[in-house]
C-alpha cells in the first residue's frame, strides 16, 4: 500500500473528510451507478487524487454493478450452489433476460451476483432492493417469489449453545469491562490474561490474539487502533453475521477491552455490505453503550461498511478498504501491529475472536481454557451449517468434538433422506472432508492432518447428488472472480485453473498439480495460497469424478 496515499487519507480523515469509497457508495445508492462526475466529487471531498479514486471505483463489486429501480442480487455462494447446483441463477437469467451485472434498457430491473448473503441455512438466497424495499428472500420458491414481485423476508437462523455456560451466545452485558474497571485490573494484567487464555484467532489463521495485542502495545506511537474484521466473506458462513446483528454488545465490549489492553482509544468495525443489517445493529448497540457510559471518551467505535470484495477479509486489504482505497493485499512486513490503519499500530482481530475476550476479562484465563475439556485448544467455537442439513443454524460447541457428532447429531444429518458426500469446513480455502472421514475431531491440528482447516467454522455439506467436477468449477470461478489482482500467481493462476475445469474437456492432472503448487508457494496471501486446498481434497477423494487425464 502506498505510504503517501495512506498519509494523505490519514490527514483528511483527521479533518473529518469522508473516504473516497463512502462518496462512491453514496453515488451508487442515489443514482444506481458511478459516473466520472461522481469520481471527481469523490476526489474533491476525500482529498484522494482522481486517479486513485478511479482505481477504487473499478475494484469493488458494489460500484461496478449498475442498479435498476429494482435491483436483484442473487447469491452464488457455495451453500446456494450446494442447494441448487446453480439452477437458481439460470432460472433468474432466463426469466429476466438479463446477464449477471446487467441492467434492463428501461432501467426497471437489474441483476447482479453476490457472494454470499449469509442465509446459508435457507438457500438459495436473493436480495431485492428498490425504493423503500430491501429484502432477502431465501429457500425453496425464492426465485419464483422474486420474479412475481412477491418476495418474503427470510427467517434469520436459529442459534443455541451446547456448553453448560455459553461464552459467545451469551448476550453481551459489559461484565468483563465492568470487572476490569471496578477491580482496577491494569492493561498489562489484562493483556497477560488474554495471552494466558490462549485465544486463537477465529478468522482462519489461528494466530494467538494475546501475542498480536502484545506487538501493538509494544509498538511506538501514541495513536493506536483496534479493528474488528467483520468481512465474513466465506461462502457458507454466517457466524459473524449472527454476532454482529444479534449479539453486537459482546463485540463492542471485546473491542473496548482490546483498546484498554493495547492503549487504543478508537476502534473500527468493517462490516460487509452483503449484511445490510449488521451496521445498523452495531450502531444501535454502540449508541446504547455510550448512553450507559461503556463507550465514549475512554474508547469509542466507528462502524464502516465495505463494498463487495472477498479478499478484503485479509487484514492488509481490510485496512485499505477502511481507508477507502482499493482492497488489495500488501506484503508484510510491515505488519498492522506496527503500521496499520492510517499508518498507526493496529490490532486487527476477527469479530468472533474479540467476542471471546469479555469472558476472559470477567472470569479469567483458567475458566476459559477449561471450556473445551476434550481438547488442548482453549475456549469454544461457533459453527454453522448449510441448508442441506436437517437442523441448520449457529451452534456454540467445544473444540475436540467429532465432525460426525456435529454433522449427524447436532445438525441432524441431511434432510430429505440425502446423505453426505463431503463437507467443506471453514470456507472456500478449506479442504473437503469425505463422509468416511467424519470421525476426525473438530480442532485445528486434527483437521489440518486431514488436509482441511477449522477456518472460520462454517460446515457446508455437499450431498450425494453433487458432481465434484461442478464443485471444482464453482470454487475456482469464485477464486478467480475474487482475486484482488495484486500477486501474479493468484491473478493469472486462478483464472487458468478455472479455465481447466470450465468446459467438459479432460483436465491434465500433471499440469493442474503444477499450477496448484505455484499458487500454494507463490501467492501473496491466503486466497491464492488456500484455493488449492479443496482442489487437493477433490483430487484425493474423488479423482474419478474430475475428468482427469494424465
Amino acid at each position: 500500500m502506498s505510504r503517501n496515499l495512506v498519509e494523505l487519507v490519514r490527514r483528511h480523515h483527521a479533518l473529518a473528510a469522508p473516504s473516497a469509497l463512502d462518496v462512491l457508495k453514496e453515488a451508487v445508492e442515489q443514482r444506481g451507478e458511478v459516473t466520472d462526475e461522481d469520481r471527481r466529487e469523490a476526489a474533491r471531498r476525500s482529498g484522494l487524487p482522481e486517479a486513485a479514486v478511479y482505481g477504487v471505483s473499478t475494484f469493488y463489486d458494489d460500484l461496478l454493478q449498475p442498479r435498476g429501480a429494482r435491483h436483484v442480487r442473487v447469491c452464488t455462494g457455495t451453500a446456494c450452489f450446494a442447494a441448487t447446483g446453480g439452477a437458481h441463477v439460470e432460472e433468474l437469467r432466463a426469466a429476466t433476460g438479463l446477464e449477471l451485472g446487467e441492467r434492463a434498457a428501461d432501467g426497471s430491473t437489474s441483476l447482479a451476483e453476490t457472494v454470499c448473503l449469509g442465509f446459508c441455512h435457507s438457500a438459495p438466497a436473493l436480495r431485492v432492493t428498490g425504493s423503500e424495499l430491501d429484502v432477502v428472500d431465501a429457500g425453496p420458491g425464492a426465485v419464483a417469489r422474486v420474479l412475481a414481485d412477491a418476495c418474503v423476508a427470510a427467517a434469520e437462523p436459529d442459534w443455541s449453545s451446547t456448553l453448560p455456560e455459553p461464552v459467545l451466545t451469551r448476550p453481551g452485558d459489559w461484565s468483563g469491562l465492568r470487572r476490569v474497571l471496578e477491580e482496577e485490573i491494569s492493561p498489562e494484567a489484562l493483556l497477560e490474561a488474554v495471552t494466558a487464555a490462549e485465544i486463537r484467532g477465529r478468522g482462519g489463521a489461528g494466530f494467538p490474539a494475546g501475542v498480536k495485542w502484545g506487538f501493538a502495545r509494544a509498538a511506538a506511537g501514541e495513536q493506536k487502533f483496534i479493528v474488528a474484521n467483520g468481512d465474513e466473506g466465506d461462502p457458507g458462513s454466517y457466524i459473524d453475521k449472527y454476532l454482529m446483528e444479534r449479539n453486537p454488545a459482546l463485540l463492542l465490549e471485546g473491542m473496548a477491552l482490546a483498546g484498554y489492553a493495547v492503549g487504543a482509544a478508537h476502534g473500527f468495525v468493517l462490516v460487509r455490505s452483503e449484511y445490510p443489517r449488521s451496521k445498523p445493529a452495531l450502531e444501535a448497540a454502540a449508541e446504547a453503550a455510550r448512553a450507559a457510559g461503556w463507550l465514549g471518551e475512554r474508547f469509542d467505535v466507528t462502524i464502516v461498511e465495505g463494498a463487495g470484495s472477498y479478499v478484503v477479509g485479509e487484514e492488509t486489504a481490510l485496512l485499505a478498504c477502511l481507508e477507502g482505497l482499493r482492497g488489495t493485499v500488501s506484503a508484510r512486513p510491515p505488519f498492522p501491529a506496527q503500521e496499520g490503519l492510517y499508518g498507526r499500530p493496529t490490532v486487527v482481530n476477527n469479530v468472533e475472536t474479540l467476542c471471546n475476550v469479555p469472558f476472559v476479562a470477567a472470569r479469567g484465563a483458567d475458566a476459559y481454557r477449561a471450556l473445551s475439556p476434550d481438547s488442548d485448544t482453549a475456549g469454544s467455537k461457533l459453527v454453522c451449517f448449510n441448508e442441506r442439513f436437517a437442523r441448520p443454524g449457529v451452534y456454540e460447541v467445544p473444540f475436540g468434538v467429532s465432525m460426525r457428532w456435529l454433522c449427524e447429531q447436532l445438525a441432524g444429518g441431511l434432510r430429505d433422506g440425502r446423505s453426505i458426500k463431503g463437507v467443506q469446513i471453514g470456507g472456500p480455502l478449506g479442504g473437503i472432508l469425505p463422509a468416511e472421514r467424519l470421525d476426525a475431531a473438530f480442532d485445528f491440528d486434527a483437521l489440518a492432518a486431514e488436509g482441511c482447516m477449522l477456518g472460520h467454522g462454517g460446515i457446508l455439506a455437499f450431498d450425494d447428488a453433487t458432481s465434484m467436477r461442478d464443485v471444482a468449477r464453482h470454487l475456482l470461478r469464485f477464486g478467480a472472480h475474487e482475486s484482488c489482482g495484486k500477486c501474479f500467481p493468484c491473478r493469472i493462476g486462478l483464472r487458468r485453473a478455472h479455465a481447466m475445469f470450465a468446459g467438459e474437456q479432460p483436465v491434465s492432472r500433471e499440469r493442474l498439480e503444477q499450477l496448484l503448487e505455484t499458487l500454494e508457494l507463490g501467492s501473496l496471501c491466503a486466497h491464492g495460497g488456500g484455493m488449492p486446498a479443496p482442489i487437493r481434497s477433490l483430487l484425493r477423494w474423488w479423482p474419478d469424478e474430475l475428468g482427469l487425464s494424465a
Partner: protein
Amino acid sequence: MSELTVTVDGTTVAVPAGATALDAARAAGRWVPTLCFDARQAPFGACRACLVGVEGAANPLPACTTRCREGMAIDTEDPAARRVAHAVVELVLSELPRAPAPDTELAQVAQRLGVGAPRWPGETHAPADPDVRHPYLAFQHELCISCGRCVRACDELQGTFALTATGRGFHANVAAGLDEGFRASACVACGACADTCPTDAITEVSLLP
C-alpha cells in the same frame, strides 16, 4: 549502521541491518529473477518471481520483502523457488496477446529462465491500438502485467499520483487520471513510468513499433 552477515549460495556477504534477501543476493553477485521490483521504489511483493530458499523456512520466500537475519542462509537456486518463478513468468506471458519486445525486462527474464510455450494457455488481454493521446507517452494496455511499477514511480518518485491500478483479478491494469489518457490526467510527462515499465505497456510514442 550495524551490519548483518548472511550467506548466499555459500558465499558470505555483509549487508546493512534492514537489508532484504534480494539486497543480499545482489551484493553476492547472484541473479534472482524479478518483475515488479525497482530499486528506486519500496518493495511491492507482487510478482513472486524472486522466490528464494531460506534455511529453516518450510517454503520459499519472496526475496524482495524478506528481511535478512544474522546468519541467514539463502539459496537462490532452490528447486521449488525456481519452479514457481518459471511458472509465474510463463503465466505472465500467457496473458499477453503478443510477445513482449526482446529488449524489455520481461522478455529478458523469460529468456534467462528458459520459459517456453505456456502450459496453461487461455484468455489474453484484448489487443488494442496504442493510446497516443499524449504527445510523448503511449499506453499499450494489452502488455500490462500489473506489476505496479508505473503507479509507484508516479507516487514515490515523482509525487504526481497521475496513475492508478484498475480493475480486479485477471482484468487488473493501469490508467492515468479517470482513464482518459495521460494528457487529461495530472501527468507532468516526467517519463518515470515509461522508464520503469518492464513490458513497454507504457512507452514513449517515438519508440512504438
